[in-house]
Structures are given as structure tokens and as C-alpha cells.
């Protein structure tokens, strides 16, 4: 039979300082970028404004578009070529975006599409064009969505904490949630570092990642729980190492396969799904890593800490484990 991982015996816990360093570097880099560099780049969904996607009959000259916008008084318009996917043809599509205006009155919101259209019609004569897609988002919606996204992330972490508490022990839940938070932080950090905009679908991807990363963690935890009963005399570090090694082939295979499907999304899924698949590509790598390098070592660290305080040195094996 084909086997990639057999009889593996890696001392994962012995490398915990490397893991800690690795996680810290990426988290801190992300945080630095969030606070001091790009911030969290928000898409139109969250910051409001107008996006008009225009498809041109011939590859457009961006300077001409710019002068057409300037002539119409739209000096704050941003013009951006849509990056074509690695496997598709050169793009003839441009995004023209206007920032959120002070829309205290109802007229403000409608203005975007019409102004861009008239500006192009009167000022751009190189080739024909057609409006492909328009997104106009008012300021109120952005605030509401930001709140919803924050709440959704918070509640889904909470929901999992409660479920794991119920199925395992409180500390397992905490370790898993910390690992998920770590993944979320690094993924958002990656968006900040590469200055890609976070849209509503990216939030959906991040929430999926929380579920996915949780999957990996649970597989390892399940094994730890099982092994704690089988290997009563061994120290926890040995049990955890053994469990990670036993599940390693599954972890790598599943992550690899999921990664392949997500990669096919990234390559073939088209422009609209780029942010979404980017989040998943980053998140799957980090999520797999964190279940091995963050969640499991946390259990051991917790037990060491408890032991140093003179408390019971045995990690409960999960009272609700299967009979």
C-alpha cells in the first residue's frame, strides 16, 4: 500500500520554542501591519462608497480614464485594473471607485453610478465600454456589517468553546479557541500585509477557517483523550507527542486535499473569489500548523503550570468520553 507517513516519531513538544517563535513572528508582523502600516484594508462592504466595474472593448488607457474622471470633477476617484487570474487572459476590466461621500440625504447614494457613467460617456472615447457590476454601499450599512462580522466571529468561537467544554474539558476548549484566534489573527494579518481588501465573502472564509482549524484540533484532541486512557503511566508530553504522530498522516492528507480544492478555486474561481480563496489558502496552512503547534502544546503547558502550583498533575481525560 502507498503510505507517506508510517512509524513517525517526532518530538513535537521539544520544538515548542521554535513554534512559539514562528507564531509570534507572524502574529506580531500582522499586528504591526494592522496598527502601523496598512491597517485592516476594508472593502466597500465595510467602508462604504461606490465601485463601478467597467468592461472595455479594448485594453483601456488608464490615463484617459483618469482625465475623463477629472474633467467630471471626480478627483478622488480610484482607477484600478482588475488583476486577471493566473490562468485567464489579460483583463480589459477596470474598477472605478469613489470614496464614501457625506450622504446625509437620499440623493447621495444614487449619485455614484450615474456620475461615473456620465463622466465616462463624455470623457472617454478610446473604445466602447459596458458597466459590468456596481456596488454602492451607504455608511450605515458598513457599520452594521462590521458589527455583524465581529459578533459572528465572537459567537462562533464561543459556540465552539461551549461544545468542547461539554465534550471534553474546559481547558481543551480554551486551547482550541486560542489556536483558532491565532489563525484568525494571522490570516487577517496576511490581508493587512499584502494590502488586500477584506470583504464580506472574506469574512465568510475566515469563519469557515475557524471551523476547519477546529476540525484539525479536535482530531488531535480526540486522540489525546483516547491515549490518556490507554497510556496511563506515561507523562502527558509523551501522550500528546504520540497522538500528534498517530494523526499526522490524516492531518497532512486532509489538509493537502482541502488545500488542493481551495487552490483550484484560487486558480480557476475567477476574480470575484480571489479574496475568498486567498483567505482559505493562508488559513488552511496556518490552521493545520496551529492544531499541532499551538493547541496541543497548550494542554501540556497548562498541566505544567497546574503542577507547579501543586495541584493535581493529571490532565482529566475528558469525563464525557465515550463509554
Amino acid at each position, binding site marked *: 500500500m502507498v503510505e507517506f507517513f508510517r512509524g513517525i516519531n517526532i518530538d513535537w513538544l521539544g520544538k515548542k520554542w521554535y513554534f512559539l517563535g514562528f507564531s509570534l513572528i507572524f502574529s506580531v508582523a500582522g499586528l504591526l501591519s494592522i496598527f502601523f502600516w496598512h491597517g485592516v484594508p476594508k472593502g466597500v462592504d465595510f467602508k462604504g462608497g461606490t465601485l463601478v466595474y467597467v468592461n472595455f472593448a479594448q485594453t483601456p488607457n488608464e490615463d484617459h480614464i483618469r482625465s475623463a474622471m477629472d474633467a467630471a470633477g471626480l478627483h478622488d476617484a480610484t482607477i484600478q485594473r482588475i488583476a486577471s487570474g493566473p490562468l485567464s487572459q489579460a483583463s480589459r476590466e477596470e474598477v472605478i471607485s469613489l470614496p464614501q461621500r457625506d450622504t446625509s440625504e437620499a440623493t447621495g447614494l444614487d449619485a455614484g453610478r450615474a456620475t461615473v457613467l456620465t463622466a465616462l460617456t463624455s470623457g472617454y472615447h478610446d473604445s466602447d465600454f459596458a458597466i459590468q457590476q456596481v456596488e*454602492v454601499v451607504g455608511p450605515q450599512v458598513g457599520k452594521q456589517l462590521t458589527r455583524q462580522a465581529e459578533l459572528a466571529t465572537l459567537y462562533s468561537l464561543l459556540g465552539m468553546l461551549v461544545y468542547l467544554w461539554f465534550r471534553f474539558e474546559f481547558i481543551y476548549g480554551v486551547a482550541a479557541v486560542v489556536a483558532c484566534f491565532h489563525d484568525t489573527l494571522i490570516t487577517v494579518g496576511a490581508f493587512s500585509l499584502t494590502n488586500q481588501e477584506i470583504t464580506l465573502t472574506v469574512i465568510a472564509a475566515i469563519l469557515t477557517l475557524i*471551523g*476547519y482549524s477546529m*476540525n484539525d484540533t479536535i482530531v488531535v484532541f480526540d486522540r489525546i483523550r483516547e491515549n490518556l486512557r490507554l497510556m496511563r503511566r506515561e507523562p502527558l508530553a509523551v501522550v500528546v507527542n504520540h497522538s500528534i504522530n498517530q494523526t499526522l498522516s490524516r492531518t497532512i*492528507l486532509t489538509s493537502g*486535499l482541502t488545500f488542493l480544492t481551495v487552490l*483550484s*478555486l484560487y486558480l480557476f474561481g475567477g476574480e470575484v473569489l480571489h479574496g475568498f480563496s486567498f483567505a482559505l489558502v493562508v488559513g488552511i496552512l496556518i490552521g493545520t500548523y496551529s492544531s499541532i503547534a499551538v493547541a496541543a502544546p497548550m494542554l501540556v503547558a497548562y498541566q505544567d503550570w497546574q503542577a507547579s502550583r501543586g495541584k493535581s498533575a493529571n490532565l482529566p481525560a475528558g469525563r464525557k468520553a465515550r463509554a
Partner: protein
Amino acid sequence: MRTNLKGKLTLIIAILVVFVYGIFGVPNGVSKDAFTQALANRIHLGLDLRGGTHLVLQVMVDEAVSAVTDNDIQRVQADLDKAQLAVGSIAKLDPAHPDVITVAGTAPDKASDVRGVLETNYGNYVVTPGADNTWTLSMKHQAMLDIQHHAVTQSIETIRDRIDRLGVAEPIIQEYGLGENQVLVELPGVDDPARVKDIIQSTARLEIHAVTGGPYTSEQEALQANNGMTAPDVELVHGNGGGRADGDQVYALKRVAIVAGNDFRDAQPSTDENGRPDITFNLTTSAGNAFYNYTNSNIGKMMAIVLDNRVREAATIQSAIRDSGRITGGFTQDQAANLSLTLRTGALPASIRILEERTVGPSLGAASVHHGVVAAIFGILVVMAFMLFYYRGAGINADLALFLNLVILLGFMGFTGSTLTLPGIAGVILTIGMGVDSNVLIFERIREELHLGKAPAAAVDQGFAHAWITIIDTHVTTIVSAAILFLFGTGPVRGFAVTLTFGLLANLFTAVYVSRVIFDAHLARKQRGEALSI
């Protein structure tokens, strides 16, 4: 054992047939077109895939509350008059609180009588006496919520009615958000929503008021003519009574309309003697009778037709009018047509603001479908090929389970009429990746058990038993996050949550049950001691 197995296989095949029916229904033949058509009938595409317009509207519910309190101010005045209780003024003092009415200047010795009238007749308000013989009526929270909710549902009905008359197919009009009085409007196939937006937003509040004075050239002049202040039951309204849209004059009108909103039965665009577009309207029978009585007893006085708070027409009553009238006023043909459409469907209870507008052109939608399908097929093929390579015989098992998983997922969507969005396609692709996880978990466990020296049948048994717990835990947590996405998400994101959840549920069945049955069927045909291909 064998018969049991047969039963299980029959069940699986039955489920396969049911869900294939869910995807395609019964196609009109066996050609490729017939299948595509059947598929399109069952699986609804979201706006991002088929093209269309997505609008989020804010109903300005404060206006509806304000309309109710306006009305109640009149009632309070009438009730106090009837009880012969003197009152100074009744008004809403704070524009930010349209729900608070202040009654001032009642007689000090009649305080208990006033309180009696207010408390018995205005149960929807909390009545508090204040200093200097004032009373504050603030609307109860529940009553306000009811009015707001009513305004939203009525707006939805009105908007639906208007959009239906525009002939947009399969529109979605529903409440949106988390109690923020917002309305979602989705219009498939509409990619330039200018006209729709005009028609949705037009409040179309048509009223006929008695004129107490005017026209004046400005508000100052109107005030001077009325000794510096307007009576509480009179309001100043701008407009042009000569039937032209431009030009600004001010009229003093009775605050309470003679006919309003729901009294109108029909409105049609027409042309006047000079061939200019105008609008003819009809009143309901009861309103027509009331209008007849009013006009009959007020011949020679002025009345004004007010549309969206502007005087469009002011004329002297020449004779008693029963149930029809006409608005002239410098309309273009289109304006007359749009306006009569909105008048026919009735007024909105409050004005509407557009918070969000997204439009996807049909070609972009088609391109997205293409990209999504290519990515999905590529993903499936890669995963299936890998499973075959890595697990050999058992790989066939996993691939069958994976295929059935997809069929059930799509069938589910067909049965429940849920909408497939672009993130939804991504959800399908992700389901493939995560769906195979269950198989990997089980197979790896079986391999481990085999390495421990167990017989194939025992190894399969143990493998499933151990992996099952893990599979339950992983699925539940992912479904938790999908459910939260569904609760908090909107539009396309919801579509994603739905496909992900269906996919995971289907996966529980295929990866565990179906896969097990295939193993059992396989083992039953094997000789004792023969190795398992895994």
C-alpha cells in the same frame, strides 16, 4: 447478513434516485438541453450568478410614528374641546422625539378631569403631569414598535405591488437585517435600476386639503397675513397651485386632509385639453361620499391637491364632486406614467432611503458560473484521483461516497429551493475537501488497526467505531460556525452557509453509512484471510 446488506444497498440506491430527482426533476427528454433546462428549474441561482440588482432600503419609520402622533394631536384637541376643558397648545416640541406630545396651558382646577380624558382615551401613551399645567404624552415602547413594524410590512407590500406592476420576474422583497427596519429587494435580470429606484422611493402621498389662506410668495408673508403665527390646525405648504412643477408659492392648509392615502382607488395617466400629460384619479365609494358632502357644503372655497408635501393644484370648488379628479402640473409622459403607477399601489407609510445597491451584469454572472464550475470539477477530479492512488480499492469506495455526497447536496438544494450563490459554489468545493476528510480519518484508522495485526473485518469495524466520535465532533463544530454565518450573514454569505451545512450533513451519511456498507459488501465476498485493498 446478506439480506441485511441487500436492504441497505436498496436504501442507498433509493436515496440516490430521490436526490437525483431533487436535482433534475423530470426532464423533458434526454438531450443535453433538456437536462440543462431541468437543472435550471430546480437549482436557483443567486443574483451574483444570474445578474440583477440588490437593494437594501431603510424605511424611515419615525415618519410613520410622527403621522400617528399628528393624528392624535387632533384627537386630543377634539376630546378636550368635547369635555369643555380649556387648553393652551398641543404640540410635539422636540423634533428628535416624534413620539412625545406636550399638552400645555390646561386650567389648574381641572387637572383631574384632564388627566381622566387623557388616560382613558390614550392607552398607548404614558401620561405624566409636568410643571405649569403641562402634560406629557409619550408613546409606549410597544405601541411604537407596532407602528414601526406595521410601517415596514406595509412598505414591503406596497413595494412588492409596485414592482409586480413593473413586470420584474421573481423579485425578492423581504425584511432585512436585525430589526433595523430595513427591506431587502432583489430584482433578477434588472441591471440598470434607475427606474425601479424612482418608483420604489416615490412616497406617493396624495392628499386633498382645505385651503385657509394663500397663495403667498413666502413663509414670512404667510405668517404676516395670519398675525405672525399659524393656528395649530393649519400648516404652511410650498408648491404651485397653477399646475406647474416649478415656481414656489406658500399655502396655508388645514393640517388634516379631506381625502388621503387609502381613499384613492385608481389613477391613470391621461392628457388634458391641450394635450399635456396629466393624471386622473378616482376615490373609493366611502371616500367619494365624504368628499361629495364636503365639496357640496364648501362651494366657493379653495382646496389643494398635495402630493408628497407639495401643492400641485389649488382650485376653487365650483360644484360638488363625488369621486374623480385630475392632477395637472407639468408632468412629462414618463412622470405621469410612473406617478399614476405609484398612486394606484397606494402610498408608502414612510419615505424610503436606499442604503446599499449592488448590480451584477448578466455576462459577469455567466462568467462566474463558468469559473465556479471549472474550479469545482477540477477540485473533484484531483481529489478523486488522489484517493484512488493512495487507497487503491478503498479509494473507489471513497470516490463513490464523495460522488453521492455531491448528489445529495445538490438534491437538497433542489428540494428546498435554496439559492446557489458564488460563495455557495465555493462552499460546494470546500465540502469536497472536508467531505473527504471523514474518509481519510476512517481509512487511516483502519490501516492502523491492520498494522496492529487485526483481521480485515475487525479492523474495518474498529476503524469506523473510533473515527465516528471524531467525525461527530468535527462536523458539529463546523455546523455551529455555519449556523452562525447563516444567522449573521446576508445574501451570498447565507448561500455559502446553507451549502456548507447541507454538504456536511450529507457527508455524515455518505462517509460513514454508505462507505461502511460498501466495505461490508466487499468483505462479504472475500475469502477469509484475504487482504483488504486500502
